[in-house]
């Protein structure tokens, strides 16, 4: 199949890249899957929770799961008025709401930490993916585990991108001694095996999802820095950069306003692959117990729990394995497609 890439390019560079990206079916499927994953993560309290989406309690209408979803958004929680009994610690909605009370429950009416007496139950109509050794619903834990994966992927690579682009931009634009020193710094950080470096750092820090994100961000910026440096070295010699300099623009302005937007696309490719790698790293750390702390769920610690029950409850292994595999796969598909879309050498290649 020939793509429309052979058509004469019209419109801006971004439009051109988007058009090429759309022509890659695997990339589009990957992107759709990422959007779905983001949706699951964002709406996790509406999909799986031990509190109803909407209910009537003591004569009043409440929206517990919706409130919980909004509270998860940074700063948005402040606009929600307090006082709802459903937001109080230890409030057991299932016990408090009578059977005939009006309540619309989420698709999965279990919280990720909700303990039931049905430990190691196989998949059933009640528990779609079964339960774990503590009787917690696996579907609920997988859904809320997605939040962790999304957060770790985006925030850690956000930190990495910030550091990597800054270091790479300064090294590439200024060149000379600055470039030599920063390039050696990059090489020193690259030399450390990242997983063991992260493990060593996590021994000093208190294990938590925030620390995992920060540590991954602080150790995974080198690839981005190298890409940015290369792009800046190339771009700074182009006419538009020379013209900006001739018009008296300062270095910071040239770097931020003129070079950075043009260097972003290849950096995005690295970031996309980085997100996939960050998800794997987090799963590995949580598997070892140094990532998300129990009883909070992450795909890594769900997999760990599945492993310990492998011979008596093999159903537990598949959900986290498949979720990690698919999440990493879709980010790689998007990364691949993005790389092809921004690389002029790929124009007109048979896909």
């Amino acid at each position, binding site marked *: 199949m020939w793509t429309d890439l052979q058509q004469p390019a019209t419109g801006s560079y971004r439009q051109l890249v988007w058009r090429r990206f759309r022509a890659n*079916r695997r990339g589009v499927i990957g992107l759709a899957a990422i959007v779905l994953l983001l949706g699951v993560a964002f709406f996790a309290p509406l999909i799986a929770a031990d509190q109803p989406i909407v209910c009537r309690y003591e004569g009043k209408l409440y929206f517990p799961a919706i409130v919980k979803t909004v509270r998860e958004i940074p700063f948005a929680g402040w606009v929600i008025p*307090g*006082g709802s009994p459903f*937001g*109080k*610690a*230890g*409030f*057991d909605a299932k016990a408090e709401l009578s059977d005939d009370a009006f309540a619309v429950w989420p698709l999965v009416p279990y919280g990720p*930490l*909700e*303990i039931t*007496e049905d*430990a*190691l*139950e*196989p*998949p059933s109509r009640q528990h779609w993916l079964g339960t774990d*050794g*503590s*009787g*917690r619903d696996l579907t609920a834990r997988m859904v809320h585990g997605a939040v962790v994966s999304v957060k770790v992927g985006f925030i850690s690579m956000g930190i990495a991108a910030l550091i990597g682009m800054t270091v790479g931009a300064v090294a590439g634009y200024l060149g000379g001694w600055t470039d030599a020193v920063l390039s050696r710094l990059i090489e020193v950080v690259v030399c450390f095996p990242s997983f063991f470096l992260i493990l060593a750092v996590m*021994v000093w820090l*208190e*294990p938590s999802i925030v620390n995992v994100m920060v540590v991954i961000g602080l150790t995974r910026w080198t690839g981005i820095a190298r890409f940015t440096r290369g792009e800046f070295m190339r771009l700074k010699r182009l006419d538009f950069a020379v013209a900006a300099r001739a018009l008296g623009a300062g270095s910071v302005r040239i770097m931020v306003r003129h070079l950075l937007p043009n260097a972003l696309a290849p950096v995005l490719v690295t970031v996309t692959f980085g997100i996939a790698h960050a998800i794997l790293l987090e799963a590995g750390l949580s598997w*070892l*117990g*140094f990532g998300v*702390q*129990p*009883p909070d769920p992450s795909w890594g610690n769900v997999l760990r*729990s599945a*492993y*310990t*029950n*492998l*011979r*008596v*409850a*093999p*159903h*537990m*292994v*598949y959900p986290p394995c*498949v979720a990690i595999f698919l999440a990493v796969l879709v980010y790689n598909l998007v990364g691949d497609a993005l790389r092809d879309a921004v690389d002029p050498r790929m124009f007109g290649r048979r896909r």
Partner: protein
Amino acid sequence: MLGSRWLRFSLLLVVVVTPGCRRAPAPVEASVTPKSLGEAAPTDRALIATDDWLIGCFRGNPNTLNPILNSSAIDKRVHDLLFDGPFVYDENLEWQTNDLLVESCVDSADHLTTTLRLKKGLRWHDGVPFTAHDIAYTWRKIVDDRVPTKAARTGPDQISACVALDEWTVRYTHKAALPTNKWNIAFDLIPKHIYEKGEADDPTMVKSEYNMRMNRSPVGNGPYRFVEWITDDKIVLQRWDDYPGPKGHFERIIYRIIPDVQGRMVAFERQEIDEIELTPQQFVLESARESFRNAGVKAFAPRWMFYYIVFNQDGSNPFFEDRQVRRAMCYAMNYPLMIKQVFHGLFEQSLGPFRELRARHGFAPEPFRYDLDMAASLLDKAGWLRDAADGWRYRMVDREGTQVRQRFAFTIKIPQQGQTSPKIIAILASDLERIGVEMKTQVVEWATLLGQARAHDFEATLLAFTLGVEPDQGWNLWHSSSYANGRNYGGYASPRVDALFEKGRHEFDHAERMRCYAELSKVVYEDAPYIFLVDAANLWGFNKRLRGIRLTPRGPHLFHPGTREWWVPKGLALHAPTAP
């Protein structure tokens, strides 16, 4: 094309997932420990497969094979086969003299000295005579501050002198006349002629190349001699044919090192190892599989080990100094659910230490039962009141002279890779939240966690402890003086408990002494320095050909004769080079 590929992928997924969808096997009853397992070895060695090998299994490498440096049960299991000492613990964990080595052992009338006379003609594995000088030398090294003897120093440090009067006579002089002195002289031994060679270069016994080599390839005097130790792989011992006592029933004893719990199970079912310590889940669910039953049998017996959550009550946090708060925590623990879900009904709720003594002397306390209302009421009394707005509990606490509002939120540290601890704390955290207390979790690598516990760097932590037969051992856990160097990690301090420990340690009237410990046990339980969670049980699997196995409250190994009694009937050899 793409569509057909997705279809194939989906089909593959269905095929892969479907086998996992069957129901977990139903729990089986714990009727176990067949009589054949405990069958004593015949006196006629011709009936024993003496050419067979016993293949045991460890979770990790020993720290050392030098008995006075030992710090783990794994170390101890190897030492017990390589070394013989003048004193042993029998099946009931009672102190005994080892008749193989000891001609006589006499206490002075004032209980301040003990004189031991050894038998003549004893030798080490390299043929050098075993004498009283070896005992005196070992004691000097144990109490030498330069040698990191760790656990071995507790006990021998209560001896003021240990002198070899001649080749076969040792005199121990005790610092005080105590009924516990007999335990203090029961230390493991090392050969003087081996270690004194390395003393000039390295008095620490752990730094020089020579000492390190000796600590990995020991010369002992027990029924088995050391052959090799391949790190992360195996330790090989060979029967010592010149042993003066009953000869070993196996030509070789090999300990394979398999850290992974699933790996150990697979190895057991493939009969690559002969013993396996089972988790409650493996004992109830996995041992019902045919592959397990084809390989071996399982054994169950009570064990003197309890799991507990210890609270730091040394004042470093605003929560647990208050006895009412600690008692509230005990009432918040859902013991029945924990026993059912985590321990599959095999373990019992722990009612604290020495409970048999308590019952005998009428000091039985009211056991803590799961009662969230009681827990909440105790927290109210302690001043931790629920906020109507968010449901959490708060109290005003003094911080550097200023009154601040403190929320009741603490962190519990649990060991990494523990299978049961995450489940236990999930149950407790859920119930604590219901009464307005937040408990967060922090997973810590095992050695680091122990270090932090010793440094009192925790708010709460989950550990386990194995008690011996001597109640004075509890001094290390609950006497206030053990806060600095002992295992009183949480800083529990009770003048009454201290006084009872002191009295028990100096009391020679056995009945009166036990009464002290019974009362002490009641006070400790009611003060709730811990949540006493469960009393564990011995859960083992043994290859079906093994005989002569006895399960004591400390397991099948750490007593005399322990593994030395195990045997295999003629014709059932499995690992011997000549076996089919």
